[in-house]
């Protein structure tokens, strides 16, 4: 294994044809790897207007140049496909161990084409690639599937799989790997389910080889030490996990409550990272080569160690449905992981239904047969709905389509707190102008992690923090943050290393290559290229400027109380400048000049 193995594994599921082909290293460098490289292949190989769940969609699973290296957190990979949720491009990042296992088997990318006639799983063991019958696995959850396959192939074999939600083609389905790590957003699990692929097992034996191993390992050690010395990555995340944000976000009046009707949760302390640690934490867990270990391990009802909730999960099954019982949040998280459902979208869909019920759109008679309610904080019902969503049963089938399609079916899509039908995460953008611009323009929909303005607008020390209510210059700041996240995703790192900055990433990837492939300027240009290519995909898929917006609640309904009271997001003060900075026209379409400049023409 090296920076790129220069080998693509391509599987046609219809005729069980397995081939390998050379990766063009110049293309790989131009699109960095992982997210960028996957977007390039998807864009070149499918019609963006295709039905996402049809055989003509493809699923690309791809590593970055740093995946499998000694660089801290260098173990990540991306799943790229057309999203059945948004209708645009989906790119979902995951950690764990699977990416390293796949790359060490000798490949950079796996392209899945067409659909298998019956459930299969794919077994990759270095050069050996087999398509196997998965009829005995179909219907099992992610934990059962992983344990069953590791029983056969051993614990060194790493398992990526779908749960029942992927099998029933829920648009909220994700892909699980290593039991509780997730390629989470945009319905990528439904695409895998549509292809009748239950799991992909990877077992690789090669070690990462560098042209100058001493230099590369010295740089890796230096960055590792730096991350351990930083308060956030050396102390905050390891001790509290991502849920450490609950109290601070809430104190700023940015914690969405009851499907974003409120922005301050009186009982936030009960669901905070501090409470999670003090009452539930068994130990922490880490992905491949990660010195941070933000993962939480808690006990489930049977006393078994399972993955604990992240910040977003704590919020969506907590404040967003007026629930302050962290025990139930742990249970909801466990169900989502086992069924293979994106926690943000699954919780947001239920919270949306709770508001639709409160407002009288959903009637008691519609859900009577399910025996469950949509009353706020009725967590026993929430657990029941999650099961019905994954199985595609009763009213759960409507919930499994996502909040937008649910609200739209009642003629009130405005109650879906989503952008491009992807549910927004736990930062109320009425109190963070840049975050709103990021949500509106993110090529995969309402997402924070691909350009999170929380560090700049909320978390930073006051001396360098941006005024979160100001719009001037915010387009430029968002562009920089989005480019940084694009680089991180494409290299194969975790976003929590972002403090090393672009020069740090360039130093690490060049050390993997053993030559000066990138400068800070050229890697930013590559990020511009990737983001514009994703935008181009969406444009050809039929998305327009009208999709680069926010729910009306964020644009028109001021926050009612708390530290962000009186504010709405002033998106349209920022959007024209953002398009201009990207080299897109006034409608948000990349101009011919920009495409030529970025080598995309």
């Amino acid at each position, binding site marked *: 294994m090296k920076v790129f193995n220069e080998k693509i594994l391509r599987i046609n599921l219809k005729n069980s044809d397995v081939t390998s082909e050379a990766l063009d290293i110049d293309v790989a460098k131009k699109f960095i790897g992982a997210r960028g490289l996957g977007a390039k292949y998807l864009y070149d190989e499918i019609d963006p207007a295709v039905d996402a769940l049809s055989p003509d969609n493809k699923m690309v699973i791809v590593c970055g140049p740093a995946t499998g290296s000694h660089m801290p957190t260098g173990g990540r990979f991306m799943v790229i496909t057309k999203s059945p949720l948004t209708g645009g491009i989906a790119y979902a990042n995951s950690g764990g161990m699977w990416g390293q296992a796949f790359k060490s088997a000798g490949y950079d990318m796996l392209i899945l084409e067409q659909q298998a006639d019956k459930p299969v799983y794919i077994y990759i063991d270095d050069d050996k690639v087999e398509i196997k019958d998965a009829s005995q696995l179909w219907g099992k959850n992610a934990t059962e599937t992983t344990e069953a396959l590791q029983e056969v192939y051993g614990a060194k074999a790493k398992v990526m799989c779908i749960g029942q939600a992927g099998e029933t083609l829920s648009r909220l389905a994700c892909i699980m790997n290593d039991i509780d790590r997730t390629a989470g957003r945009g319905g990528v699990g439904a695409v895998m389910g549509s292809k009748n692929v239950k799991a992909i097992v990877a077992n690789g034996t090669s070690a990462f080889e560098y042209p100058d191993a001493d230099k590369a390992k010295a740089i890796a050690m230096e960055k590792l030490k730096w991350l351990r010395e930083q308060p956030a990555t050396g102390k905050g995340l390891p001790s509290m996990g991502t849920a450490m944000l609950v109290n601070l976000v809430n104190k700023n009046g940015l914690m969405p409550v009851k499907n974003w009707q409120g922005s301050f949760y009186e009982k936030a302390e009960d669901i905070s*990272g501090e409470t999670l640690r003090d009452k539930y934490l068994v130990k922490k867990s880490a992905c491949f080569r990660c010195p941070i270990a933000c993962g939480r391990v808690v006990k489930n009802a049977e006393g078994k160690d399972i993955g604990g909730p992240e910040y977003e999960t704590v919020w969506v099954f907590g404040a967003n449905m007026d629930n302050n019982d962290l025990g139930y949040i742990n249970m909801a998280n466990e169900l989502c992981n086992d069924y293979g459902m994106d926690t943000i979208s699954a919780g947001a869909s239920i919270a949306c239904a709770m508001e639709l019920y409160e407002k009288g759109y959903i009637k008691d008679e519609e859900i009577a047969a399910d025996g469950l309610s949509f009353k706020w904080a009725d967590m026993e019902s929430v657990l029941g709905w999650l099961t019905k969503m994954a199985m595609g049963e009763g009213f759960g089938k409507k919930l499994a389509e996502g909040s937008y399609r649910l609200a739209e079916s009642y003629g009130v899509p405005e109650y879906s707190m989503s952008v491009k039908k992807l549910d927004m995460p736990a930062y109320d953008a009425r109190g963070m102008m840049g975050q709103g611009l990021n949500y509106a323009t993110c090529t995969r929909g309402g997402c924070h992690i691909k350009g999170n303005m929380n560090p700049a607008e909320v978390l930073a020390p006051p001396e360098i923090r941006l005024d979160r209510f100001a719009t001037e210059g915010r387009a430029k700041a968002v562009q920089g943050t989005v480019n940084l996240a694009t680089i991180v995703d494409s290299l194969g790192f975790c976003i929590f290393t972002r403090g090393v900055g672009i020069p740090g990433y360039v130093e690490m990837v060049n050390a993997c290559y053993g030559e000066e492939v990138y400068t800070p300027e050229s890697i930013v240009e590559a990020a511009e290229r990737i983001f514009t290519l994703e935008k181009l995909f969406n444009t050809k898929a039929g998305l327009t400027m009208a999709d680069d917006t926010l729910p009306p609640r964020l644009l028109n309904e001021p926050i009612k109380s708390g530290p962000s009271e009186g504010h709405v997001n002033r998106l349209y003060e920022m959007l024209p400048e953002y398009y201009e900075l990207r080299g897109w026209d006034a409608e948000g379409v990349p101009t011919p000049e920009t495409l030529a400049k970025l080598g995309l023409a």
Partner: protein
Amino acid sequence: MKIEVQLYSYLRDGRGKTVELDVHEHATTADVIKMLNIGDNVVANMMINDVDAGRESALKEGDCLSLFPLLTGG
């Protein structure tokens, strides 16, 4: 004068969730951080009575000061 300090994240370790302090007149946020033996540049977010404050913000009798270390995540 008496003030209340609310601590968050790992700042609670060894100090507790809430601390009542007797501070001198015109004491600032920075003075309180020092009194609690919290290292330089550890605290990134500070609020007085739930309103954003800085290191040199002055406190008055009965104020509630919230201190957060530099956080990340999401």
